[in-house]
């Protein structure tokens, strides 16, 4: 029976990073993966393929609508969807092979199959062909991630009623796409198919889009998406989808007081969130109970109630984000090795990769108000940023929230081209406890979009230069 210092169940961004860090620290590590390729949801059917589609579809849209005014005459661009899908698949392939290479490089032994914890320190891996193998280990990290949340009474067939997985492999552009859920996934994939020609309607149960994002940002985001042709039905819920005919007939019930309406669509994307994935892990056998939201309870050191059993990423509490899982993977590997692993949950960036992008880190205005913290706001619009004006991409703004007394940056929120890259500066500043003044006094290259971050920092002290 093979035996290890650490067995990681799941090779997504949490699991594979954890395995590599543990190997770096001298542990003998194995990874259990039930799919054919490494990388989990993120690399195979999540972050990475959706980013490839967002990139390609954005350029397609730009070629059709933006090139002309820059003096580039290309005529009306034609879509070759199979080629675009191939472009996406190559990106995925490159990434999953990268993980396989890293495993090899770090002498991490992969075991392909479904991992089940039979007892503390014992994992059984059942391969696709039904053969089972027992593994002995000193520690186990559960990094099994999450799965698509289902909508009651609606069966996802991944053809006409799809989850994010199916929405990434549609064989033709749907004429009408109905998106259920105005969260990150729904709006990113809705954007992809909107750009490629679909009519997109988003139905959201709450009265706002992207819950959790700063309100002001969300409102502007909705306006910009509506300008791109996405329509929203907020405070409404999908109660049934009739798929008997050639078109899907969706029953949408608005909040009290308004009549139900029917929306026709060719494809419906169910994107109401994700749920922790713990199926088949055998947690009952080791006496581990899930919390009321199906998550594995852990202490601050990712230890579960069972000695030697840890859990990280989407299966535990906290935002379901790949980079949160990665940092937890590193922290738990270090903790198991007797070091001081730590994740700063106050500084976890959040990005929506639409056009423009939405990015934030730290507290929103609503959170600060609820907590009774006095703060100053510094805001700077891209209409006053030189680079944005030159590129004629002036939608959006940067908002910095700083403690009224100490000037410490408490939250940074931005909506603009490239916000996902720009948020890193804010995260570093916050990690080091920077004051808004520190950002304001840090030289920023000109002409760049990040100058707007500096101007917003100046605006906290009401001394922005360019407006």
């Amino acid at each position, binding site marked *: 029976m093979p035996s290890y210092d650490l067995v990681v169940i799941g090779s997504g961004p949490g699991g594979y990073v954890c395995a590599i860090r543990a190997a770096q620290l001298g542990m003998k590590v194995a990874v259990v993966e039930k799919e054919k390729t490494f990388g989990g949801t993120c690399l195979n059917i999540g972050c990475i393929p959706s980013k490839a589609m967002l990139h390609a579809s954005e350029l397609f849209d730009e070629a059709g609508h933006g090139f002309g005014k820059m003096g580039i005459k290309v005529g009306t661009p034609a879509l070759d969807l199979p080629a675009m899908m191939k472009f996406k698949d190559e990106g995925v392939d490159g990434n999953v092979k990268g993980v396989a290479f890293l495993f090899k490089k770090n002498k991490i032994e992969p075991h392909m199959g479904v991992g089940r914890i039979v007892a503390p320190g014992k994992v059984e891996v059942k391969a696709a062909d039904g053969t089972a193998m027992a593994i002995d280990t000193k520690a186990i990290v559960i990094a099994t991630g999450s799965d698509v949340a289902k909508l009651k009474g609606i069966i996802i067939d991944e053809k006409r009623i799809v989850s994010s997985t199916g929405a990434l492999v549609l064989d033709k552009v749907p004429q009408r796409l109905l998106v259920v859920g105005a969260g990150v996934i729904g709006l990113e994939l809705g954007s992809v198919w909107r750009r490629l020609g679909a009519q997109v309607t988003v139905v959201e149960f709450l009265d706002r889009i992207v819950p959790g994002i700063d309100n002001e940002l969300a409102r502007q985001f909705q306006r910009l998406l509506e300008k791109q042709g996405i329509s929203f039905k907020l405070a409404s819920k999908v109660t049934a989808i009739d798929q008997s005919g050639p078109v899907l007939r969706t029953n949408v019930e608005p909040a009290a007081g308004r009549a139900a309406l029917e929306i026709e669509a060719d494809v419906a994307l169910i994107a109401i969130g994700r749920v922790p994935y713990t199926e088949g892990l055998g947690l009952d056998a080791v006496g581990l109970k899930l919390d009321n939201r199906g998550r594995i309870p852990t202490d601050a050191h990712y230890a579960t109630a069972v000695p030697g059993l840890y859990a990280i990423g989407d299966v535990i509490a906290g935002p379901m984000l790949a980079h949160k899982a990665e940092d937890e993977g590193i922290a738990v590997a270090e903790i198991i090795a007797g070091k001081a692993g730590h994740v700063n949950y106050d500084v976890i960036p959040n990005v929506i990769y639409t056009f423009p992008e939405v990015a934030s880190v730290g507290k929103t205005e609503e959170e600060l108000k609820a907590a009774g913290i006095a703060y100053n706001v510094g805001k700077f619009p891209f209409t006053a940023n030189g680079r944005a004006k030159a590129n004629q991409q002036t939608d959006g703004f940067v908002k910095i929230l700083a403690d009224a007394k100490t000037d410490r940056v408490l939250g940074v929120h931005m909506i603009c081209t490239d916000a996902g890259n720009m948020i890193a500066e804010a995260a570093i500043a916050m990690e080091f406890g920077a*004051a808004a003044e520190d950002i304001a006094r840090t030289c920023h290259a000109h002409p760049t979009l990040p100058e707007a971050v500096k101007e917003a920092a100046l605006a906290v002290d009401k001394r922005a230069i360019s407006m």
Partner: protein
Amino acid sequence: MTEIRVPTLGESVTEATIGKWFKQPGDAVAVDEPLVELETDKVTIEVPAPAAGVLSEIAVKDGETVAVGALLGQINPGTGAAAKAPTESAKAAAAAPPKPAGPPPQPPKIAATDAPLAPSVRRLATESGVSPATVAGTGKDGRVVKGDMLAAIERAAAAPTPVSQPAAAVQVRAPSPADDAAREERVRMTRLRQTIARRLKDAQNTAAMLTTFNEVDMTAVMALRAQYRDLFEKKHGVKFGFMGFFVRACVQALKEIPAVNAEIDGADIIYKNYYHVGIAVGTDKGLVVPVVRDCDLKSLAEIEKEIAGYGRRARDGQLKIEDMQGGTFTITNGGIYGSLMSTPILNAPQSGILGMHKIQERPMVVAGKIEARPMMYLAVSYDHRIVDGREAVTFLVRVKEGLEDPARLVLDL
């Protein structure tokens, strides 16, 4: 050219006084050879040579005060002749059995003041004259952030006398008549002594301090000790003392009366569900209080062993700053000097301190008859702001009960 700098001295220690240079400019030095002794608020440490060579320059003289990260001196790469000497002294250093006064481990992370200061902090330092080196940082790795500076400036404005002033104030005295003046000796207080003076006075100024007394009949503990002394020493390799019993009795009482193990932070009370008990140890330089951590999880023998180890290291001046941090409750034993009764001063920000005293045979009435019993007076000083009289008295009664009937300690009664 290698710079010698003041190493990180542990949390809340921002400056040190040069005790003594062991080397003079021009002396050859070997790597890790002790160069200079630094006195801090908590311990005395030696700074080892970061490189071999010749000590070319001493930047600060004996008795001067330096901040963490400050330049102490410089070492030039040795010439042929000089390089030889260090090799010999290196051997000597290696041969010397215990390393004198362990220098703090070279910190892997960047010391707070080695890192460049944030631009806002630099501006505020220039504008206000408050040196960031004197400000305790709350940022990553102890960096000083803007909020720390603003708070320090506010404090400085509110209190015209800086924090370090009280020690100076103590020294102010009316001049003595000339006759007597000649027969006086003026000795500068060591930093440790200054810190003791300041902290004791701070504790008195802050806490609503009160002492309650009781007495304990040591018959049972002494009998137990007499019975098992040899066996205990043989098995655990440490003397079977009284302290272990007192620590255990206190921990059990602290569990019952958590306020005594708590501290005040602003408008909050922080209850600590861990039991780090400080044991006051007298040394020739003054009193130090090493901390036995997680006493609730340790056996009596483990506690005894740790206390014995601390006592040895305290005498040898080898206690590290970490050894003395994080205590939640303190025990002090004036009995070893013969004290019969005393009112200990709190070890701030803790809320309780137990005073042990001399064991003396006294006539006690036991079941109607007068018997000679080995008695000890117990005192517990407490912060009345968060500990009620009932709680303090109950605490002390529980300690007494545990000691008079050690079975209670085993049975958790």
